[in-house]
């Protein structure tokens, strides 16, 4: 049976449709909830979020994968109401964006505890919400190298992925040798891992995307839209054409079946200002038109946004 866990329950993978595989309803660093400068009323949060999801649905978007980690403002009750009211399937993550976003309770936890926690969130539910996680988020802490804690989280993610069949999605694909060594040691096939953010402005040069693909990993060009052309670009922005050329070059090397693409946008950021004008709908409004203009056919576009994510997201048991 093909299944994917969404926050409202399992759905058949055939129903995912077009998937935005790395997005955020709202992201904030742990502790940002203490700083009132970022607070928004629930009215404001819905007001900023609902139209973006509705637009996504109207454009033909099927599924929104929220890649927000456990301590980063992940709010499954809220996601459930958004999904029910907009018709967009929302998949929530277990795991952490990186070791530096795991609070002390998890930072001190053993690999065994972290594994058990991830498995619980995938098979039983997240807190008391009833919603189950459909993907495991892991990542590399600031600084460019995997920390010991990052490695413990990767190892626990690998074990939980094997135990439950859900895939793993990474924040950053730098230091991939260490990541792949852990996945190999744990016996997790690399096609269950999406190595994300290979396209980001800070790390693209240091990311061995081709090598990762050759090892069998999936490759995430998933910061589309964070462009230096923006009015107020973030530090990880990159010139639009440079990113697009990178993506097309990579596909041209025969990696079409390996790539996924997304915008990593926040519908309503929680602990940072966000980036004005950047939403999940960049996929429809900019990226897909750019790909068509570059000569990609509809079959290829379907492969990138529908077939590859369905293969990746399907629980493999």
């Amino acid at each position, binding site marked *: 049976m093909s299944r994917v866990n969404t926050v409202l329950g399992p759905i058949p993978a055939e129903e995912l449709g077009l998937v935005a595989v790395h997005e955020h309803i709202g992201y904030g*660093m742990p502790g940002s909830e203490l700083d009132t400068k970022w607070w928004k009323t629930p009215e404001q949060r819905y007001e900023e979020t609902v139209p973006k999801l509705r637009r996504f649905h109207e454009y033909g978007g099927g599924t929104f994968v929220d890649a927000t980690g456990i301590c980063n403002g992940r709010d499954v009750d809220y996601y459930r109401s958004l999904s029910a009211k907009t018709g967009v399937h929302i998949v929530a993550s277990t795991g952490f964006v990186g070791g530096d976003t795991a609070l002390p309770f998890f930072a001190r936890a053993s690999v065994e505890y972290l594994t058990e926690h991830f498995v619980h969130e995938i098979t039983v539910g997240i807190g008391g919400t009833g919603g189950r996680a459909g993907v495991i988020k892991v990542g590399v802490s600031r600084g460019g190298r995997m920390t010991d804690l990052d490695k413990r989280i990767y190892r626990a993610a690998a074990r939980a992925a094997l135990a439950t069949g859900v895939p793993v999605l990474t924040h950053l694909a730098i230091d991939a040798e260490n990541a792949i060594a852990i996945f190999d040691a744990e016996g997790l096939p690399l096609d269950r891992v999406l190595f994300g953010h290979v396209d980001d402005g800070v790390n693209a040069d240091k990311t061995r995307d081709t090598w990762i693909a050759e090892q069998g990993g999936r490759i995430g060009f998933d910061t589309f839209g964070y462009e230096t052309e923006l009015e107020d670009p973030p530090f990880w922005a990159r010139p639009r054409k440079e990113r697009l050329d990178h993506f097309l070059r990579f596909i041209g090397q025969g990696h079409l079946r390996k790539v996924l693409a997304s915008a990593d946008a926040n519908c309503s950021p*929680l602990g940072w200002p966000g980036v004005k004008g950047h939403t999940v709908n960049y996929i429809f409004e900019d990226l897909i038109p750019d790909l068509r203009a570059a000569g990609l056919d509809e079959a290829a576009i379907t492969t990138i946004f529908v077939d590859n994510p369905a293969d990746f997201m399907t629980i493999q048991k």
Partner: protein
Amino acid sequence: MTGAQTAGNSTGNTVNTVLGPVPAQELGVAAVHEALLSVFPGAQYGFDVTLDRAEIFETLAGKLKDFRRHGGGTIVDSTGMFHGRDVRLYETLSRTTGVHIVASTGQGPEEMLGGYFLTPQTNPPTPWPAEKFADLFAKEVTEGMVVPRVERRGAAGLVATAATLAGMTATDESLFRGAARAALATGVPVSIRFGNDAVRDLEVVLDEKLPAGRVVVGGLDRRDAVAAGAPFEVAARGAYVALDHVGAEGTGDTEDDTHVTDAERAALVIELVEAGHGDRILLSSNATGVAKGHPANDVAYSAVLTTFVPLLAKQGLGDGDVRRILVDNPRDLLSVR
């Protein structure tokens, strides 16, 4: 409120409790270093951690009533803003039990902070400086303590921070300086837990020109601090000396070897009084009312009153000195100046 820092007499002053300002002379016997709900940061998300508010309330109310029955008046939750603090629950507890509750702002040491303060979304990810911590903490006094992403409630009654046990880190120093500046700006006191050198860590907050009488140094009944003579040096500088692990021995917690025994603690109190520091001593238990995500200790808030005061009396400490330590000193410390 930053005006004259008059020592001693605090007759006209008030203390920030969770139910609002209370005249300082109404506090009664006050325990300055205790924990009500103590949640190790992140444990609230743990799949096997349950936070049943009704159950937590019942446990804490029982412990507070026991404290009151033995003559206690005020409990200070000195766990800061990011260790399970639940202001609404504390308001209800105070109303129900009649015990004054003072809650704290502040956080630390570095390891206990969220990534927002340590690796912010800037390039490079520079940890927060003192000035930003000062602003965060001061607003919890002037505008009220936060219920994250929901609202602000009553004013914090003190700023609590701590240094890394192995030694103060750069971020710990920012926390200490920020705490001192917040205290200067708002008039509430500062509570510090030192790392590996109590006097050195105290000097950091004093360097911010915070009068020593606005500072309490916790954990001075730690064996290493006692061996180094830190309680006397801290008192000599004019800061409050908290011997705040009363009753810890024999509770099976891991702090057994870290702190002196109650008998040794009582002897230390007598020596401090004899050295003229009777107006600088504070007694407390660091009792964890309800602990989530870390081991609880099984110490009652009333331990000072039920077991320790009799020890002091037996060693010859007079009623006047006992009263000064249990009532007058915390009143003077907690009074908003």
